[in-house]
């Protein structure tokens, strides 16, 4: 694997649509649940260990080459909120566009053909990582990092939070991010023999509920 390739895929400026999604931070800011760096850190930690773990495991499994159709079904089952399923598929489609242009690959073409309306983003992410020559642990790292970098960036824009504080929040989460990625890669190996049921499925009821609340707003800055 190439560290530089990993940086390209993980770059927040990789044009895959992530900038318009807050990972639930917009709803949490409006409700007052995120109001400073400390509450942002708590939010990111909670999201990392729920949605982040689930996404990282799916991405790792896709990077290992598990059947993406089965992984997509597993992602659906792990995402009760229809607003979050729609956001995940839209982001998956956007990432697919960027990934196919960046790392042309028959695996990506096949996944795009199987899901013309978009597969779940972590499944596309893992497939893209594979196309780029990256491994399961790399894919898991990117998914885990995206699960917290999105809310952190969004909170800087939404609250005018000091960007240095937001970067500090992410930096202090690094050991936990590494742990989540390692666990996800291990689970993906297990899923290769036992099927996608063996992947972890942690979810946060409040993130699912708040995503539905957010989807009902007539006016919002972020798509999710």
């Amino acid at each position, binding site marked *: 694997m190439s560290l530089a390739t990993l940086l390209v895929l993980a770059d927040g400026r990789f044009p895959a649509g992530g900038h318009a999604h807050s990972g639930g931070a917009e709803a949490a800011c409006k409700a007052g649940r995120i109001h400073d760096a400390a509450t942002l850190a*708590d939010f990111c930690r909670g999201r990392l260990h729920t949605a982040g773990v689930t996404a990282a495991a799916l991405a790792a499994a896709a990077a290992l080459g598990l059947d993406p159709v089965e992984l997509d079904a597993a992602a659906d089952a792990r995402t009760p909120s229809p607003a979050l399923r729609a956001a995940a598929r839209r982001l998956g489609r956007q990432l697919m566009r960027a990934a196919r242009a960046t790392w042309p690959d028959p695996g990506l073409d096949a996944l795009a053909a199987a899901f013309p309306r978009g597969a779940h983003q972590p499944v596309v992410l893992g497939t893209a990582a594979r196309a780029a020559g990256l491994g399961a642990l790399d894919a898991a790292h990117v998914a885990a990092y995206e699960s917290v970098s999105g809310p952190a960036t969004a909170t800087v824009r939404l609250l005018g939070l000091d960007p240095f504080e937001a970067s500090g929040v992410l930096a202090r989460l690094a050991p936990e991010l590494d742990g989540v990625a390692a666990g996800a890669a291990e689970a993906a190996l297990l899923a290769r023999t036992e099927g996608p049921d063996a992947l972890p499925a942690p979810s946060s009821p409040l993130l699912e509920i708040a995503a539905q609340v957010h989807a009902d707003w007539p006016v919002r800055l972020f798509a999710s």
Partner: protein
Amino acid sequence: MTPAAPATTPAPPAGLRATARIGAVRDGRGGTALPLLAGEGPLALRRTRDEGAEAGVMLVGAMSAPLGGDHLTVEADAGPGARLAMRSAAATLALPGRGGEPARYDVRLSLAEDAQVRWLPEQLVSVRGSDLRVRTRAELAPTARLMLREEQVLGRTGEAPGTLRARLTVIRGGRPLLDQELSCGPGAPGGWDGPAGIAGHRALGQLLVVDPRFDADPPAARVLGEFAAVTPLAGPAVLVTALAPDALRLRELLDEAARAYGW
């Protein structure tokens, strides 16, 4: 016990293992028979009054299990066309064990073609110092209907919660329909009680209704205030998820949802 036994420390007493089994079949006269109704240890079973074609079973907690180290299992198998309702007589208390080891509580539901099961136990209370892993797995034939309620209360009134990990997996026609894991309490990963966790709520629950009729007429997504939502799943099913300050408020919400989507 003599204090002598030198080189090895005695292993803590193995926890209790108990399995309750329920088998429901169509009785051929428009009702449901229960050829298998076998409780064990703290898991005692009583047949209750039928409601039409639906046989009723009450899980009677003969002890306040599970304690740490215990492993309890409930298995219910509904044959083709059978109709079964299962309830529990009281809340289940997860209690600490002597050795600090976790307790396990497994529920396995199996629904054949046209079977109909309502699994509506009372709350699970995670008592301070306890460590419980709950695993609920339901496998449904494509034409089966399931109504399932789960309520978790974190700590008795005014008490800090124990550690609770719960996973709910629903497979329909061999495909995953819902797969969710929840971790709360001192042993849970960071952020569980924060703004992306349960944000200080002490009662949470879900009502799942799987009904093939939703294929043609899926319920609409809708929010029930700031802390509850109705979410149609990617299949003929709806999940109502709610956070509440207490068990009473939670039950009111889920009861209303049961009236709207269940039977």
